């Protein structure tokens, strides 16, 4: 194999002068985590609102929420990121657009918006499915007791719906983490981008990708374990 292995590379100084290659990867990891958490917050909040709207007995609201979901899930994430990053500032008034383009960490905000809204459309589907999976009798029972629609959602439907969709939400969260890597195309220096940069500077392709791979697997494991714990905490049988 025409390749020169060098596992010491991680402890060599990177051309950035601020530390070793390992530090470089770790800073990428940090951005990955930060971006994922911010995007997840957006996705979860917006997605829940939209998902609930789709189950309410108000036609125009259902339609609007449905259109939202279709819009955000039928355009590839990469294209959405380009729209947020390249296209949106051009469509705004010149001054505002320029301000957006020149603010520090523009790529980060674009990534949070792009990945966040993309995720929200998927979360919305899960929330709707979760509410839909409850027996119709549950909302009837709530109503029959005299609870209002809002109370029925708050006290009866949502607590169960979120329990049901906890596992799919876990994988959506994992997807969010993975999806942040697409933001390397708009210059976000997250983990995959850093692994690629390390590869470019050092030419040690396999070492740098292996390290990134291990880091992603570790994040994955941490998230899965954390979510399992949460699932157990809120499960109705496991106590």
């Amino acid at each position: 194999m025409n390749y020169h292995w060098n596992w010491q590379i991680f402890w060599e100084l990177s051309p950035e002068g601020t530390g070793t290659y390992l530090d470089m990867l770790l800073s990428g990891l940090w951005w990955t985590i930060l971006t994922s958490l911010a995007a997840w917050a957006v996705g979860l909040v917006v997605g829940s609102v939209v998902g609930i709207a789709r189950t309410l007995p108000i036609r125009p609201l259902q339609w609007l929420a449905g259109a939202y979901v279709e819009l955000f899930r039928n355009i590839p994430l990469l294209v959405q990121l380009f729209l947020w990053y390249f296209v949106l500032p051009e469509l705004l008034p010149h001054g505002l657009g320029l301000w957006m383009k020149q603010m520090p960490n523009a790529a980060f905000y674009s990534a949070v918006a792009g990945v966040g809204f993309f995720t929200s459309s998927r979360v919305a589907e899960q929330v709707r499915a979760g509410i839909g999976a409850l027996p119709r009798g549950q909302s009837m029972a709530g109503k029959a007791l005299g609870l209002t629609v809002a109370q029925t959602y708050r006290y009866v439907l949502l607590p169960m719906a979120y329990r049901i969709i906890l596992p799919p939400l876990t994988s959506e969260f994992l997807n969010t983490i993975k999806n942040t890597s697409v933001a390397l195309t708009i210059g976000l220096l997250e983990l995959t981008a850093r692994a690629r940069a390390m590869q470019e500077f050092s030419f040690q392709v396999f070492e740098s990708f292996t390290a990134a791979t291990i880091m992603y697997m570790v994040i994955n494991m941490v998230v899965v374990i954390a979510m399992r714990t949460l699932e157990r905490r809120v499960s109705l049988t496991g106590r």
Partner: protein
Amino acid sequence: MIDITLVNKFYGNFQVLTDCTTKVRKGEVVVVCGPSGSGKSTLIKCVNALEPFQSGRIIVDGVDLSDPKVDLNRLRARVGMVFQHFELFPHLRITENLCLAQEKVLGRSHEEAMAKTLSLLERVGLKDHAEKRPGQLSGGQQQRVAIARALAMDPVAMLFDEPTSALDPEMIKEVLDVMIELAQDGMTMMVVTHEMGFARKVADRVIFMDKGEIVEDVPKDDFFGKPHSDRAQAFLSKILTH
């Protein structure tokens, strides 16, 4: 108490209820039976304003359901309803199931609601299970809790939709016993059921529905004695033979 006049209801083009008319007086127990899909559940849901209907009128305890000024939530709270599949709230403890609507709808204090809850659980024989969750109870126990939950709102009438048909044979009796007691205490009840033993014992009248129509609406003894329509006869012979 419950006054149903010429009610018609459609799902899209499909007519589920046709000109349904009947009356349930205070303290009366009415059993509703009929083949699957005949509209029994739909009728009972209309009475509790859980389903809208297109024409006709339903008056419950003096309140006209179709009056747009009526607060439907308060009205629903005054009519208790028990479902085939219990529909307890699985994430809440038994006491929480009973307290929720008392506090949120009737505005009772937690202490008041709790006192009522415990006395009702005692009445249905489940005081020992007060702090469990629904999933930890058998079907029969869950249905008794569901009855207690409806009673906690001090309803003026109770509606039952096949309360025993999702139960294992051995548990049917424990639920029927609670219902019989309730009937004997003078509760106004409308009960969809195929348990003819129950009907024989406590019903005042039996309503037989088929294809969305009320085909028979007669005193119990007349029903079991000499059903008028062929359809009711055919139905009775089927469910009574085995």
